[in-house]
């Protein structure tokens, strides 16, 4: 299983490549034959109904799970991940960033920590216990930890799912600022409005399959797949469990 997940760099212009990657939990195929390449450029947004495999695809791309079949090629040392509900270490905000820097083998001095916190507007909370931050502040701290590692790709799994509009905007601003600095954003969301605001390109998943990939404007104006058309029209698209 492990040999199907390669730590080798993909081709120089390609940051990540999946070839016929599938993922199975027990008898359920949660992802089937996903092939795609992700290169430098604007944010890629993963869309799809609940249970379509967005989180599983992100975890597969990140290397948190190994494919049941197929191949994933990515330089794992150059990726970071922000979860829907990030876990805060039981220490201060600054110590959380220091930990992320140390884990990446980077110097965890005050300058680096301050720079990471300034990037997400949390410098003034540096000494506060991380678990006492609000939900939005915790997601911004998770972003600071992730970005402090200087990733080439930043994966985000519905990072604003439980945030209010103001906190959502703060997170989106950080994401777009990072994209402008050259960090490749790969983010899942089921919020169509958010996808419209952020996406440069859309990957649409349904039933564990990548059913459509298109530039954002094209996807939102003229979706090709029936599943995407129904999803954008606001219909309930229920992902069937795919059993082999």
């Amino acid at each position, binding site marked *: 299983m492990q040999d199907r997940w390669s730590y080798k760099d993909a081709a120089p212009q390609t940051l990540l490549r999946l070839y016929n990657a599938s993922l199975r939990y027990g008898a359920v195929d949660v992802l089937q034959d996903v092939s795609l390449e992700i290169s430098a450029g604007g944010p890629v947004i993963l869309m799809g109904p609940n249970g379509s495999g967005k989180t599983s695809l992100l975890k597969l791309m*990140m290397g*948190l799970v190994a494919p049941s079949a197929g191949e994933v090629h990515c330089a*794992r*040392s150059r990726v*970071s*991940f922000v*979860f829907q509900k*990030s*876990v*805060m*270490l*039981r*220490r201060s905000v600054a110590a959380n960033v220091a*930990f*992320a820097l*140390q*884990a*990446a083998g980077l110097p965890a001095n005050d300058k680096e920590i301050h720079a990471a916190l300034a990037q997400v507007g949390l410098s003034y909370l540096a000494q506060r*216990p*991380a*678990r*006492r931050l609000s939900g939005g502040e915790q997601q911004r701290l998770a972003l600071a*930890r992730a970005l402090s*590692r200087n990733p080439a790709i930043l994966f985000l799994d519905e990072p604003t799912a439980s945030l209010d509009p103001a906190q959502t905007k703060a997170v989106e601003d950080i994401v777009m600022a990072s994209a402008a600095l050259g960090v490749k954003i790969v983010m899942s969301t089921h919020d169509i409005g958010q996808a419209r605001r952020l996406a440069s390109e859309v990957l649409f998943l349904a039933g564990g399959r990548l059913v459509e990939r298109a530039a954002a404007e094209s996807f939102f104006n003229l979706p090709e797949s029936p599943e995407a058309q129904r999803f954008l029209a606001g219909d309930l698209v229920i992902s069937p469990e795919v059993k082999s």
Partner: protein
Amino acid sequence: MDEPSAFQLILSGDPQLLAIVRLSLSVTLAATLVAGVLGLGLGACLALTRFPGRQGLVIALNALMGLPPVVVGLLVFLALSRSGPLGFLGLLFTPQAMIIAQTILITPIIAALSRQVIEDLWAEYKDEFTAMDVPGAMRVRALLWDARFSLVTILLAGFGRAAAEVGAVMIVGGNIEGFTRMMTTSIALETSKGDLPLAISLGIILIAIMFCVNALAWGVRQWSVRHAG
């Protein structure tokens, strides 16, 4: 002349009383220290590793939390007695024998509770640590550090259990006056002799120590909630 009351014994700093309290605290602290090192190490190892028979070991460890002190005393007595496998050490009826007995008694408690705490924390941190590619040794250090307040509380619970124990230290220490007489064994002896003031004064001190330990555990918990989240 009237016999001094329990409170007079405490307030006057009776030398016999102080010697018993001093010995009790030193034996129990030493046992807690040794059991802490062994128990936290074993707990962390069980929480973070997977191997055949691990589940059985966890069940056995949980069962050993209820070890009867007199059985521990008997086993240590047999091991340290002149004809026992460790008889050559000459430790029977010494404070060291009591430390060994108390260590055996509370190590499973510290190991079982710390395993649960570390395993729960690991379940919470696992995905985040994997995503951050945190190296193995750094993971262990981070888990122990982030669980530090719970682990301190567990050590205090172990100390409390050891300090209140009577059966094991009675058997392996022999309750020798001025040498292996602990608070709990003294209370049992003095009560049977009818010297109630000394027994009561030791009882008051023992309860005060337990109260302080629990207050400390509560304080640690409150501090951790306020300062570490």
